[in-house]
């Protein structure tokens, strides 16, 4: 376990270095580190971009883990179950109704609609038979699709379809100093969830066991939903939707590190950070000097891993 963490940390460090050095402005490593211009580039663009990817990945993975525990289902995550779509709807409505609103206001409203969206998701899926675990993510996809369609219609009416694409397709090319800092809040929300790691682990054993152990079930669920909503709102506002991180990372980590969040949650956060940074880096390098959005890279990768989880030896993972 400790060795796995060490290896993961080293891999992450290598990714961070690569991410700081790679980019369109073709400076080699030495020029980058010795010239003042190079430092400026790192400070204003590469470092923010790297941090944004790390924070987004860690927060999304943790949010996915929390959602899976609340749903008692390993196949859900905020971005494929209506929460992310609700956040986009919130931003769109804010942009239309309060065009002059500051970014924090937009973010707060996005988080609120995300919260409403996930409450709706749980209200619907509560009634599903527990013997059919795959129904839950399926209903989530349909639910997210419906919200997405409503959002697209509203965007069309408001003549804002081009913005919609920015919020729907998460990527980091526009990340700069002064434009990503809200993501620290998402990271903080994820970090805060570690304080209630035990309660969250117990949540995964179901409502009856939670109540038996004297947990205030509703309160813990609500706290979890607030973290999910904050992370969804903040990431969608600053970088756009990135699917699958919250799905794939907790599943893979649980295989190695188990389900006791005190041990597994830090690994989940690290792995999520590494995945998103790696995807962003790959997107920057693959068709250089052009870029593939991180969400696209992860979408392809995540879909493949998800199918493997469903059909491969992970079929008992429900």
């Amino acid at each position, binding site marked *: 376990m400790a060795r796995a963490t060490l290896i993961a940390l080293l891999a992450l460090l290598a990714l961070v270095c690569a991410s700081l050095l790679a980019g369109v402005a073709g400076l080699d490593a030495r020029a980058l580190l010795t010239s003042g211009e190079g430092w400026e580039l790192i400070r204003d663009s590469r470092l923010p971009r790297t941090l944004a990817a790390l924070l987004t990945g860690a927060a999304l993975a943790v949010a996915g883990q929390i959602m899976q525990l609340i749903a008692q289902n390993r196949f859900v995550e905020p971005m494929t179950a209506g929460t992310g779509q609700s956040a986009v709807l919130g931003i769109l409505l804010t942009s239309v109704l309060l065009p002059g609103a500051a970014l924090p206001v937009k973010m707060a409203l996005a988080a609120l609609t995300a919260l409403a969206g996930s409450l709706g998701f749980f209200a619907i899926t509560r009634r599903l038979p527990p013997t059919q675990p795959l129904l839950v993510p399926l209903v989530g996809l349909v639910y997210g699709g419906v919200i997405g369609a409503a959002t697209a219609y509203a965007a069309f009416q408001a003549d804002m379809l081009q913005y919609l694409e920015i919020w729907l397709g998460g990527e980091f090319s526009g990340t700069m100093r002064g434009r990503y800092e809200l993501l620290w809040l998402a990271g903080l929300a994820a970090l805060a969830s570690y304080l209630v790691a*035990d309660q969250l*682990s117990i949540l995964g*054993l179901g409502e009856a*066991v939670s*109540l038996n*152990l004297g*947990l205030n079930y509703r309160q813990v669920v609500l706290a979890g939903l607030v973290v999910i909503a904050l992370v969804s709102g903040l990431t969608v506002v600053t970088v756009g939707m990135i699917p699958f991180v919250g799905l794939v990372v907790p599943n893979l980590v649980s295989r190695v590190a188990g*389900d*006791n969040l005190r041990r597994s949650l830090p690994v989940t956060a690290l792995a999520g950070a590494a995945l998103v940074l790696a995807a962003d880096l790959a997107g920057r390098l693959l068709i250089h000097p052009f870029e593939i959005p991180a969400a696209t890279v992860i979408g392809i990768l995540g879909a493949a891993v998800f199918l493997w989880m469903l059909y491969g030896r992970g079929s008992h*993972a429900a």
Partner: protein
Amino acid sequence: MIEIQSVSHRIGQAQILTDVSLRLERGGVIALAGPNGAGKSTLLSLIARLQPLQQGQIRVDDMQLGQCDDRALARKLAILPQQVNASSRLTVRDLVGFGRYPHHRGRPTAGDRARVEAALAQFDLGPLADRQLETLSGGQRQRAFVAMSYVQDTDFLLLDEPLNNLDLAAARSLMAQLRQLADDQGRTVVIVLHDINYATAYADRIVVLKGGRVVADGAPAETVTAAMLEQVFGTAAPVHSVGGRPVVLV
């Protein structure tokens, strides 16, 4: 003492429990029996505040359900539900450890850990302690959950069909341990049993439910008769007396 006063419960249109009143004195093993769907699990879950009370009152010692502190109740009363989520990758030791959660609220002391290790040994879980739940057999998993309720160390222990999936040795050893808890430590164990013979062998009292009502209640020798089985279960099973206690021939 658990005092149940005229509790009724409905789910939708269906009347699940009708005017159930029971006094469960402190100390002793009380078996809850009755046909499938009689309302045994519902009654237990109401006592353990897993569902809100609709009608009537339940008191656990001086605590009135619905008005008392959840955490305090979790140190007084533990329940093992009939259905528990088993697809977890928690280890057996972690699971049993969570049984101490009401006492340490996330900061286990050396004493808590010692308790957990003792329970692992007591329920023959030592060799399985580091295995994940989803890799265990049904009976091994059941033992882990029983150990978790046990280690919660409460005056009242409610167990809903804990003998499910247990082999003969594990079932007898569990019943003997519950007997010991009642005799040596004055704990109250309320246990749902389908095998009447376990009830007559280990319980002080048998409460029989049918259709949401209490239809028989008393010491095993008085309650378990061929007539009762005929009336409650609608099956003609002969009852013999072996060594002074009734045994149902199946």
